[in-house]
């Protein structure tokens, strides 16, 4: 790996100050399991001058609760999150999602904030510099997305206009289903936004001097049934082809509230709002679940090689709703 200046940040304020001083030429490092791959393969046009280690900031990890909310520090390690009794009690679908991330060794160092902010796995974007040179795709300021006419079997099936890369974060899908918000700290103060609004077609909304500090989950109704399903080619150390998170509240067989979120189908987790609306007030059966699955994928526009993702997504929606 090409070298860089390494700085340990002792507080959020210091990290923000350093980011501002380096004006985009520094990267934050938490678990490092995504960033080190990016640096080793030299996939980005600009190599960072400095790495700012934020693991040294003490107050950013842990899970806490108050009456209505679960708070997760951005530096909470995935393995610790999975083992947290509060998560198991209130957000089993988040635990399920965390347990599908990568492998045990990675979950022992990777953080929830890093999982949300990880870069896409698009194989054109990630193409290593050492094998014939980096690919200057649209996401890196180039003119075209090679996936549109290329090998696009793992790319977006909805919502893409220019870049067809998908958000690889499993926890973002779970957190969107849980209606979670994320707090960003930066030079001009802090702001809080829904997890699904964290992502943009070419990356995320973080300014160069911002970092994720905390995630807030409103405690779901105890009766709500939570499910997370991730479809991968191999079970461990793989990214989702499609994932689905669902939260349904049933009263005497009738669905009174539903949240359905699709992952790895677009640049951001996608709420299936039409399907949610359709299900509300109806009995949850094989038929209504199938209908909801059709509605969830109604707006999809697959590329030449990824129409199969539609069928997988529909099946996962149905299975998640029926708890199969």
């Amino acid at each position, binding site marked *: *790996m*090409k*070298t*860089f*200046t*390494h*700085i*340990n940040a002792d507080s959020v304020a210091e990290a923000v*100050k*350093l980011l501002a*001083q*380096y*004006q985009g030429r520094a990267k934050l*490092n938490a678990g*490092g*399991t995504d960033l*080190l*791959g990016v*640096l*080793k*393969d030299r996939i980005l046009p600009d190599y960072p*001058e*400095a*790495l700012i*280690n934020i*693991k040294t900031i003490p107050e950013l990890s842990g899970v806490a609760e108050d009456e209505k909310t679960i708070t997760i520090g951005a530096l909470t390690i995935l*393995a610790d999150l999975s083992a947290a009794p509060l998560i198991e009690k209130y957000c089993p679908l988040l635990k399920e999602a965390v347990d599908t991330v*990568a*492998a*045990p*060794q*990675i979950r*022992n*160092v990777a953080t929830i904030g890093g999982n949300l902010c990880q870069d896409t796995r698009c194989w054109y974007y990630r193409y290593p510099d050492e094998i014939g040179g980096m690919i200057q795709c649209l996401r890196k300021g180039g003119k075209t997305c090679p996936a549109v006419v290329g090998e696009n079997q793992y790319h977006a099936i909805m919502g893409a206009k220019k870049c067809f890369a998908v958000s690889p974060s499993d926890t973002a899908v779970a957190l969107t289903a849980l209606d979670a918000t994320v707090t960003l700290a930066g030079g001009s103060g802090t702001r809080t936004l829904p997890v699904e609004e964290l992502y943009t077609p070419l990356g995320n909304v973080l300014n160069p001097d911002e970092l994720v500090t905390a995630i807030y989950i409103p405690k779901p109704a105890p009766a709500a049934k939570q499910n997370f399903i991730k479809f991968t080619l191999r*079970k*461990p*150390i793989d990214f989702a082809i499609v994932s689905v998170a669902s939260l349904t509240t049933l009263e005497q067989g009738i669905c009174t509230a539903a949240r359905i979120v699709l992952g790895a189908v677009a640049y951001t987790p996608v709420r299936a709002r039409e399907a949610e609306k359709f299900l509300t007030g109806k009995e949850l059966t094989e038929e209504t679940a199938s209908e909801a699955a059709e509605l969830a994928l109604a707006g999809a526009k697959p590329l030449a090689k990824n129409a199969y993702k539609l069928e997988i997504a529909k099946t996962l929606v149905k299975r998640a709703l029926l708890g199969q």
Partner: protein
Amino acid sequence: MTSMPEKTTHSIITLTVNGDEHAFILGEGAHQVSPSHTLAHTLRETLGLTGTKISCDRGACGCCTVLMDGKAVLSCMLLTVECAGKQITTIEGLGDPATGAIDRLQQSFIDHTAFQCGFCTPGIIMSAKALLNQNPSPTREEVQAALAGNFCRCISHYHVLDAVLDAAQKGDPE
């Protein structure tokens, strides 16, 4: 070019590897540890502990697994500079260095012929060690889950499962 922050950081770091404390000078010179060195690189190239293997070097194969404060981690995806103050155990740290006796888990791998080419074996043994330290009598499924991050292209997995479970059964009743 804007002025860079003046903060000088950690010119010397120490980490404990297999019980021995090592101090490293940070820098780009000979015998120094660069901020960009991974723990796997430092273990192999600086300390000569070549039992830890580097295969994919991208966090996808598990060959470089070591224990950090008792937990299985990938040494290729950690910066040495960020491991300051940590306790690292590598495959060389198992068993009894005084007598040269190997660990029960290592013996079990031999007894079960739980490898072919052996390149992935140090990583698998370290993942299994982390599991047994935490859970001395795991089920077969728990062993599978704990070793999910270790790949073996010779398909030694079935023998590995037997070896780990057998080592667990022979564990001291503590």
